[in-house]
């Protein structure tokens, strides 16, 4: 059944099942199954399996020996991006990499613990319960993803980034333990020049580690700073080795909409890449929407997923590897930080939850109207304090990191990074059997960013200053100087045109009534487009409803 569904494998704790090779299915979708990229082995009574990318020079065998000798502490020194699973006679442990580049989900069902790298792997178990968690739906409406261990289904759990799941094979008891902490990294007292050098060295190393040996590699190049840095660094390194630079891809949504393509072309010219620009229309997105949601698997209501999906489809014709600039914003002091910092410049956060509420508002999804959007019968199941404020409070009131900018960075990495950016890229490019390479989400890059003086990341209102300065010699000056734009998906216009019929169908009054999750009147108002942000909200509701139909088999 797992194969028929096409998911990437499930691991079960049931004694006797695949006992000789209990971890094999974890790595099913890897483009290669050699030592450097995942595999399995048996050392001193431990069966160890790894799905993902290990650092150069590290093999599954060396990881297995380290785990046998040092137990979970061996993870502390293990770079790369992976799901590592190991079991002995008593315990099954499944660990997710430090930043959450790979994903893992689990659930207990009929005395077994099921683990998969995608939700559908766990849901494929016959009879696995499907009950919606209303609090999680409120979180989805606020963030466009569900943070933490929770999932939109009550019985499905996610292993958060930098955590491990431990299963007692005798009793079936489970516990989730955090193993990776970067909050304790405090800034060093160094000059801006030294900080820039540290950033350059760390990012260069992360890019170099990810370049595939002799294979061709592609890259998503938006024309923004982060992907430009990665492309320029990769192109320079590959040329030095005598390899061709990455083949780069960017997209726009039509001449009538703003795009970054001129900047992407500028970078491609500078880096000497073979560059392609695609035009993606709302109609094309509508055509692949259901397929995309199926691959996305977990509700992630960000229209950028559509761009990733279409780009990956084209890029996969050229290589199994795709570099990207994901992570530059959360790791180097991107655009979510100044608004939160400036909120403290005036005495307006006097409410006990003022800081938390402001942080929630900066997500600019539908957080302020969760109750209005939920079906009246479900509203009592949503608790704003429990489901939203309590989720972000630990990040915003933490003792460590000491600096507020670093607090925000950790929050953004562990929320948006681990639950939206990385899973989105993993699934959208994984749908075409590609492996995403995200050097800016490297563990050592993150540590370096936390180690440099905070004022070198966000300097006199200039975001990502250290990263900009570190690559001033490679990246065109126009790209370094331009303000952040981001991929501006014109959903507002699509829902008035090319996606209008799709939205009317998926979110029809009858469909909304039958699902019984959202308020029919509010959804109807949204479809009539009464306010400016209804585009993103319609996208969230539509993708959620399509996901729900997949999961409930409707």
């Amino acid at each position, binding site marked *: 059944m797992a194969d028929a569904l096409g998911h990437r494998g499930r691991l079960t704790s049931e004694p006797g099942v695949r006992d000789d090779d209990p971890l094999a299915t974890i790595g099913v979708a890897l483009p290669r199954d050699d030592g450097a990229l995942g595999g399995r082995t048996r050392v001193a009574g431990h069966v160890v399996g790894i799905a993902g990318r290990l650092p150069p020079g590290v093999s599954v065998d060396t990881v297995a020996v380290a785990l046998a000798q040092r137990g979970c502490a061996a993870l502390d020194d293990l770079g790369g991006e992976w799901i590592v699973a190991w079991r002995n006679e008593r315990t099954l442990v499944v660990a997710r990499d430090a930043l959450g580049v790979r994903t893992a989900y689990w659930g207990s069902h009929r005395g077994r613990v099921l683990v998969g790298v995608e939700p559908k792997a766990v849901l494929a178990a016959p009879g696995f319960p499907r009950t919606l968690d209303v609090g999680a739906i409120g979180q989805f409406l606020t963030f466009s993803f569900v943070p933490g261990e929770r999932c939109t289904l009550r019985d499905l759990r996610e292993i958060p980034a930098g955590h491990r799941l431990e299963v007692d094979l005798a009793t079936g008891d489970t516990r989730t333990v955090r193993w990776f902490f970067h909050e304790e990294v405090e800034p060093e007292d160094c000059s801006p020049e030294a900080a820039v050098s540290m950033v350059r060295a760390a990012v260069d190393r992360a890019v170099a580690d990810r370049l595939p040996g002799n294979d061709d590699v592609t890259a998503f190049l938006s024309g923004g700073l982060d992907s430009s840095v990665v492309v320029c660094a990769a192109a320079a390194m590959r040329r030095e080795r005598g390899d061709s630079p990455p083949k780069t891809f960017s997209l726009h949504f039509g001449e009538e909409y703003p795009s970054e393509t001129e900047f992407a072309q500028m970078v491609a010219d500078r880096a000497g890449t073979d560059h392609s620009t695609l035009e993606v229309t709302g109609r094309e997105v509508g055509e692949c929407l259901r397929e995309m949601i199926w691959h996305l698997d977990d509700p992630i209501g960000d229209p950028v997923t559509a761009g990733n999906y279409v780009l990956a489809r084209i890029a996969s014709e050229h290589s199994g590897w795709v570099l990207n600039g994901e992570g530059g914003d959360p790791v180097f002091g991107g655009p979510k930080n*100044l608004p939160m*910092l400036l909120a403290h*410049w*005036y005495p307006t956060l006097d409410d006990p939850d003022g800081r938390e509420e402001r942080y929630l508002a900066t997500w*600019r999804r539908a957080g302020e109207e969760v109750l209005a959007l939920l079906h009246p019968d479900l509203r009592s199941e949503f608790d704003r304090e429990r489901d939203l404020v309590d989720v972000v409070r630990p990040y915003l009131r933490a003792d460590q990191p000491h600096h507020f900018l670093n607090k925000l960075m950790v929050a953004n990495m562990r929320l948006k990074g681990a639950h939206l950016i990385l899973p989105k890229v993993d699934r959208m490019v994984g749908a075409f059997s590609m492996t995403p390479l995200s050097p800016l989400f490297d563990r050592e890059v993150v540590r370096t960013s936390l180690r440099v003086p905070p004022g070198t990341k966000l300097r006199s209102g200039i975001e990502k200053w250290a990263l900009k300065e570190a690559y001033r010699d490679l990246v065109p000056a126009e790209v370094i100087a331009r303000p952040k734009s981001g991929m501006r998906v014109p959903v507002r216009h699509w829902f008035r045109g090319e996606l209008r019929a799709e939205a009317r169908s998926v979110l029809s009054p009858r469909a909304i009534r039958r699902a019984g999750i959202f308020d029919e009147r509010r959804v109807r108002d949204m479809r009539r487009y009464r306010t400016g942000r209804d585009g993103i909200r319609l996208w969230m509701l539509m993708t959620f409803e399509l996901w729900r139909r997949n999961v409930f088999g409707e």
Partner: protein
Amino acid sequence: MAAARATGGGEWWVTANGVAAVLARRRRPLFGMFPRTSRAAFERWRETILQYHQTYPIHRLIDRPALETDAGTPWPEPDLFDYGAERVLVVDDPLLVDLFVRNWVHSDSRTVIVSIDGYPRRALDLAKQLVADRDDLPICLLHSSGAAPEDMAADTRELLAVDQGRPVDDLGLAVDAPRRVRALHPWRRIGPASVDCLPMGALTVGVSGLLAAITVAGGMAGGGDTSHTSHVWDDATDGGDGDFG
């Protein structure tokens, strides 16, 4: 009802001007009569709204500047003020500082907002430091249609202690705004329109959009002059629709 409409059903903070402006824009009779849109009538409504607010507080009505405080920051982090902002906005009425700050325009636009009379003092000190640290940091003005932008620009440079040749971007309402801007048509009779007479949706979206367009790389200012950009308000109506969301 006017207050509810002005606040967008409780979404925005407003001033008494904003609530009175809803009455001024009415095209249907109020209590059986068409309101007369004269300056005197407008001032009377404004006073009535403030008096009513004293007895029956209107949700999210700003009646006085309230951001001045001598208390230090209540937060434990040492770095909240260390990272600057993307620009400084100077407004012609301290109440507008409260209006924009309460509606989080400063936060969303990454802008320090102060009034021309130096309110609030703490934000002014920070703004002065910022413009001293970065001589390319944009400085913007926002004012009523009755203001003299050149005078305000000169006063702003003095307030922020910068060279009189430093560029300043004028985002304010031009003198002919009541004629050109549909939402301000009643002010053709009332007289000069203050910024908070614009519908809040249009105002917050408009100001945020204008501020976002003014960056170090792409500033609208030219050669030490005061450049004027208030044509953006021409499309201001009761709504606002400013991004791709």
